[in-house]
């Protein structure tokens, strides 16, 4: 069973929180996840380039305590929806983690949003179409609920529908909001039904979705539809190119409007450190993000000193400081990517080596850069 608590709330809305996972029978605490936290984008369960044996190296204050402190991964449904029949055959408990090889202490959030490959495929108020590696797959709300029940991820992020942005027509934006409202209602009914049935196998912790692109009015309609038994608010599609002012307006209004009290809030599509800091101040707790992987794939590493950057006057620039290790200047630099960084990459390798790996198109380059960037990102959140 998973629950979320707010701790240390700062006015007006920024707060720290904590997810707790308890054993259903014994009530014993099995793991926790502090928020604000990133929900790291994965390709079918694993972060791009990383294997589970490297997971312990992604957390700054690694588990020296007896209680395993996890970090969170986000699995887009379209990566695994073709394999549900196989996953079903695995032993009952924690099927999804068994299938992907994710260790028990790592948190798994399952959703329909694939932030590297947004779907604009047709949808109705009962189903949406996912783009998978084998083609297309239609998923109804019932299919989704059953899949969640079967796979038992820690948290479910709800059904978002296709992406809309400021270039979408007015009608399309309104339709997207209508559809998400329907999804929320139908899924809400399913969750309530499962709870009435006595079992807690309704798929653990549920977020309700808010869509509507840049249109505030449509978004607020969606916010209204996210009511109990939903336990969280997922503000989807916030990376469609809106300005920072629009972003602030949308988030503030959405959080003011919601009737759910004391629930975690997730924002999709916000990933860069300056945006993260800005939106945490507005009250957002979770971020579905692939920022560390995106910059690693370009050969870049985050090198800002975290405490200094956050106190900096020009915070936005400071938080964006990166180096591109493809650059020739790093050819002979036998120093770590970020001096004093305790990540796997910086304690074992030099800028010169990574520069060489990038130039010879070796996969290890992106593995090492990812290890650094994710560690650094997690440290920022800490």
């Amino acid at each position: 069973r998973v629950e979320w608590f707010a701790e240390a709330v700062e006015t007006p809305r920024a707060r720290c929180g904590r997810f707790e996972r308890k054993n259903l029978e014994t009530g014993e605490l099995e793991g926790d996840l502090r928020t604000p936290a990133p929900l790291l984008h994965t390709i079918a369960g694993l972060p791009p380039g990383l294997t589970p044996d490297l997971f312990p190296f992604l957390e700054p204050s690694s588990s020296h305590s007896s209680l395993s402190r996890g970090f969170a991964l986000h699995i887009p449904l379209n990566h695994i929806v073709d394999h549900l029949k196989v996953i079903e055959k695995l032993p009952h408990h924690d099927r999804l983690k068994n299938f992907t090889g994710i260790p028990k202490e790592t948190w798994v959030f399952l959703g329909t949003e694939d932030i590297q490959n947004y779907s604009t495929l047709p949808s109705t108020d009962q189903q949406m179409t996912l783009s998978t590696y084998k083609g297309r797959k239609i998923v109804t709300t019932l299919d989704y609920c059953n899949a969640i029940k079967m796979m038992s991820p820690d948290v479910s992020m709800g059904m978002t529908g296709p992406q809309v942005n400021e270039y979408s027509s007015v009608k399309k934006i309104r339709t997207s909001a209508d559809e998400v409202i329907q999804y929320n209602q139908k899924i809400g009914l399913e969750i309530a039904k499962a709870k009435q049935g006595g079992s807690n196998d309704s798929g653990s912790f549920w977020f309700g979705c808010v869509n509507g692109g840049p249109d505030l009015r449509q978004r607020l309609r969606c916010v209204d539809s996210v009511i109990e038994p939903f336990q969280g608010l997922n503000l989807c599609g916030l990376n469609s190119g809106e300005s920072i002012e629009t972003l602030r307006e949308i988030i503030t209004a959405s959080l003011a409007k919601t009737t759910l009290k004391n629930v975690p809030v997730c924002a999709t599509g916000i990933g860069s450190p300056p945006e993260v800091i800005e939106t945490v101040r507005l009250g957002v707790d979770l971020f579905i993000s692939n920022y560390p992987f995106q910059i690693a794939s370009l050969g870049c590493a985050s090198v800002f000193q975290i405490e200094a950057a956050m106190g900096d006057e020009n915070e936005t620039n400071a938080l964006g400081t990166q180096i591109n290790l493809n650059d020739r200047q790093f050819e002979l630099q036998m120093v770590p990517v970020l001096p004093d960084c305790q990540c796997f990459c910086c304690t074992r390798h030099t800028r010169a080596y990574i520069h060489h790996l990038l130039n010879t198109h070796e996969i290890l380059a992106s593995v090492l850069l990812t290890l650094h960037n994710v560690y650094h990102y997690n440290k920022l959140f800490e």
Partner: protein
Amino acid sequence: MYAEMALDNNSGRSTMSATPLGSQLRFEVLYQSKKSRARVGRIITAEGREIMTPTFVPVATCASVKALHPQQVHDCGTHLTFCNTYHLMLHPGSETVAKAGGLHRFMNHKGALITDSGGFQVFSLAYGSVHRELTTNGTLLPETVSSPSSDSGDPDEIGNVIKGRRQFQREGERTSMVTLISEDGVQFVSYRDGRRLKLNAELSIEHQKRLGADIIVPFDELPPFHIEQDQLKESVSRTHRWQLRSLKAHLGDPRHQALYGIVHGGLDHQLRSISSSFVLSHPFDGIALGGSLGKTKDD
């Protein structure tokens, strides 16, 4: 012909100061099979790295086993890892690796390393892929100048060769990046930036010294699979001369590295036998089997 080759060996040997065979490596047989010649062994390199044998040696072409970190490579049970001198020559360059303190430091690799001479890649540049080699009966790619007896080529000729390349590329066949094969060594063009480079026995050893692997190999010539008998003899003879030059360069500055001699001779038993004697009669630290080993298991 064989007598001549033996004489070559003798004349080579007499000018060299011999160090005891195997001084850079310690090898012990832990178990010898009674049913076959198979054995379990242990090699300890001069710097104390242990290699259990028989062992699978993964290739870290450009100082990285694909997608694996050195710790993961070690955790898979790897004792010895192989790096390509040719690729490392082109990037980052052996000087850069030397500045980093050698390959072990550059990669942060704790296990034993072995480098090749660069010969294989360079010669496959001249003959094309193994597939092409087998299907065209070992013809050199266009624009490769192979000179059996003369020394370094005429610069103008090479210039023309490079200009001629463009014309061939339009016709669709890959042109050779090797511009000259001669008694001295090989000249070729870097695939990265078009620079003209040279590789011979002394240069190969120099690069391998800078890279600093535990085990290194001499520069040898790799004849194609389809080759006339007399060409093969000529090739083996040349390879022996190149190996002696490599040995001399190595012994001038051993640096705790072990140099393996390479037995050549294609599928010809007699040549193989002569080549083995050659390797065994010189202070190489180990024996490598090089060149074509045939098409079938029986070969």
